[in-house]
């Protein structure tokens, strides 16, 4: 091999021109949806590792896709959590209730009764199955797209609607944008409008639980787009260093408003793989597979509870609806793209599974659909009776409270200036 003077430009390497790579999704409006780049491995192939497996032994799970429900809607393989039929039916109901609630609230917003709404359509399995896999006293630090967590924990829909309406029964006193819930008695943390901030907070909460020798663990959720924020890195670093009992979930629904997941790094690696560099297990899961989501979350929860430390779970799913009522996806993705999503719809897949088990049928499903629709309508009626944003909001008198524990002199003065 020729000996080269190192300070000369490397003869071996071509000298540019350099090019900047700009990520590009597989299809844009007007084009055919194209998910050919998404590999869908068969269900049931992966082993469920022991709870005490060390991270290096788990690396394959970050690039794999944990799936339980096969194409015939049967639960197969080592990851099958073997949930009883009653639980599965409850899961189906809670997912459907979440979807029904979302559809109704969207209409309500369109009617101008509130200013804003965000649906979780297509992602219901994430919130419902994960809530089931956690204990009721585990602390949840969600983003704005896990309303299903509240449904799964049996929170009052009327209360949720009252927040959305900022009406006289809004426990957040009219202060928050619709859906920015906070429900302490359900161990559901206050949703922040600033992306990702809840992630290190969840780790801190979990560290506190461990400091105190408690038994409760924490779970938090961010979208794949939010993984680019500093808080994602802080959370993983602190969780790794102190081995905090926390489950850090990345809901990869393919989009961050208009930006496909390539702009968060998805062209180069999975989001589960981010865990590897912190020595944290990373599990990549079919987010539309209720059973797989439950099983992976249960594994992570049991591991955390037994002082096994944190787990990062990527929930691979698809945002079927618009980002929010302020968004129109037809401007940046093919109109009917969601129909081509290779992992199907979580409600439909669980429904088919129950039918395959002989525990469900179309007639019961139709009845359930109608029942839930009526329930939501009834709840809505009650909630509206307490007012809507366009009618009477909670009293402005309260707007100077809770800035501090006690209202300080300068805020008393300002309240008086306002005439209250």
């Amino acid at each position: 091999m020729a000996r080269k003077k190192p300070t000369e430009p490397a003869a071996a390497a071509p000298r540019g021109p350099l090019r900047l790579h700009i990520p590009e999704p597989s299809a844009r409006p007007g084009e055919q949806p194209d998910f050919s780049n998404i590999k869908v491995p068969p269900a049931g192939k992966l082993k469920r590792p022991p709870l005490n497996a060390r991270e290096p032994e788990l690396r394959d799970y970050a690039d794999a896709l944990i799936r339980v429900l096969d194409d015939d809607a049967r639960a197969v393989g080592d990851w099958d959590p073997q949930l009883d039929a009653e639980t599965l039916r409850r899961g189906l109901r809670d997912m459907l209730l979440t979807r029904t609630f979302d559809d109704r609230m969207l209409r309500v917003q369109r009617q101008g009764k509130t200013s804003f709404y965000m649906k979780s359509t297509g992602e219901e399995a994430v919130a419902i199955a994960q809530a089931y896999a956690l204990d009721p006293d585990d602390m949840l630090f969600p983003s704005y797209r896990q309303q299903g967590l509240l449904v799964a924990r049996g929170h009052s829909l009327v209360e949720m609607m009252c927040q959305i309406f900022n009406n006289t029964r809004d426990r957040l006193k009219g202060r928050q944008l619709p859906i920015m819930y906070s429900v302490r008695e359900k161990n559901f943390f206050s949703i922040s409008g600033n992306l990702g901030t809840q992630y290190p907070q969840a780790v801190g909460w979990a560290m506190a639980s461990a400091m105190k020798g408690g038994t409760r663990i924490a779970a938090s959720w961010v979208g794949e787009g939010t993984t680019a924020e500093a808080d994602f890195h802080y959370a993983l670093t602190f969780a790794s260093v102190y081995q905090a009992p926390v489950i850090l979930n990345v809901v990869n629904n393919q989009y961050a408003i208009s930006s496909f997941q390539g702009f968060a790094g998805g062209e180069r690696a999975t989001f589960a793989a981010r865990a590897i560099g912190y020595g944290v297990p990373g599990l990549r899961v079919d987010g539309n597979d209720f059973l797989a989501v439950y099983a992976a979350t249960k594994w992570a929860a049991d591991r955390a509870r037994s002082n096994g430390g944190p787990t990062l779970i990527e929930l691979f799913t698809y945002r079927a609806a618009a980002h929010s009522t302020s968004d129109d996806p037809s401007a940046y993705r093919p109109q009917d793209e969601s129909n081509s999503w290779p992992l199907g719809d979580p409600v439909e897949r669980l429904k088919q599974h129950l039918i395959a088990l002989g525990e469900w049928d179309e007639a019961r499903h139709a009845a359930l659909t109608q029942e839930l629709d009526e329930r939501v309508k009834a709840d809505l009626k009650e909630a509206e009776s307490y007012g809507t944003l366009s009618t009477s909001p909670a009293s402005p008198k309260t707007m100077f409270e809770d800035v501090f524990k006690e209202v300080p002199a300068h805020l008393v003065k300002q309240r008086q200036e306002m005439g209250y």
Partner: protein
Amino acid sequence: MATMNMIQAINSALDVMLGRDDNVVIFGEDVGYFGGVFRATAGLQKKHGKTRVFDTPIAEGGILGTAIGMGVYGLRPVAEIQFADYIYPAFDQLVSEAARLRYRSGGEYFAPITVRAPCGGGIFGGQTHSQSPEGVFTHVCGLKTVMPSNPYDAKGLLIAAIEDDDPVMFFEPKRIYNGPFDGHHDRPLQPWSKFPQSEVPEGYYRIDLGKAAIARAGSDVTVLAYGTMVHVCLAAVEEAGVDGEVIDLRSLLPIDVDAIVASVKKTGRCVIVHEATRTSGFGAELSALVQEHCFHHLEAPIERVTGWDTPYPHAFEWHYFPGPQRVIPALQRVMEN
């Protein structure tokens, strides 16, 4: 000349600069293919290409950190922060880097970046889509801070900001993107097309940073405002029947002290209005400046009318927003003295 609303004027400024200077690049969350959540960059990627106008990861600190590096290379980055409320993750790169680089390197390196951020309330955005953080940046030596109040100024000031070799914070009051909002939320919004400031040249022009504009000449009281509040104050002086001189600051730093002082020495009275929270807001600096320069000319205490010292409460937007109902009494109080 064309008729433009504020978004169109901003889009035009970006388009003109992309065309004039190969080193201008524009990026931010959803600004590329989609054209921005407020459409400020609509059509620009298609026209100028994917490496001139592109989307970024959701990481405000990364957006401004890389912007500084691009500026060091020789580009003129124009970064969009989707809402001013989301600028805080980038605070260290702004304060410790963009603002300090020229100084600490003895002038060897600098950050000719422009940071665009929609700010202010009045759109039912709740506490994280309504903030006015401009005051904080005026405390950071090395940053310039600008806020236009109309389409003509928006384009001219934005072009000047992009051409500026210092980092410029360019705040856009989103409430007036489509029309001048005077605080009367119960009345229909008048589109910009009905106002002369929507007459905007299609080509290049600049409005130098640091020069205020007299939005309304008057002799009774000097009203200092910027952004949306300029329109609120114009309405308020009319309704109060006070001959107020409304000064549109346009640039907060550098600040046009001469224009302010000349006016207050003439009127002897001063009301300062901004939407940001009161305590330590930019109104405090304005008040201090005015009393330092005009102490012996002041016939009444300087009044500040501002957002309350609370987060912006979603349902109580109109109780929070400092509209005419709060500016008028202040005008009357200073006139009584």
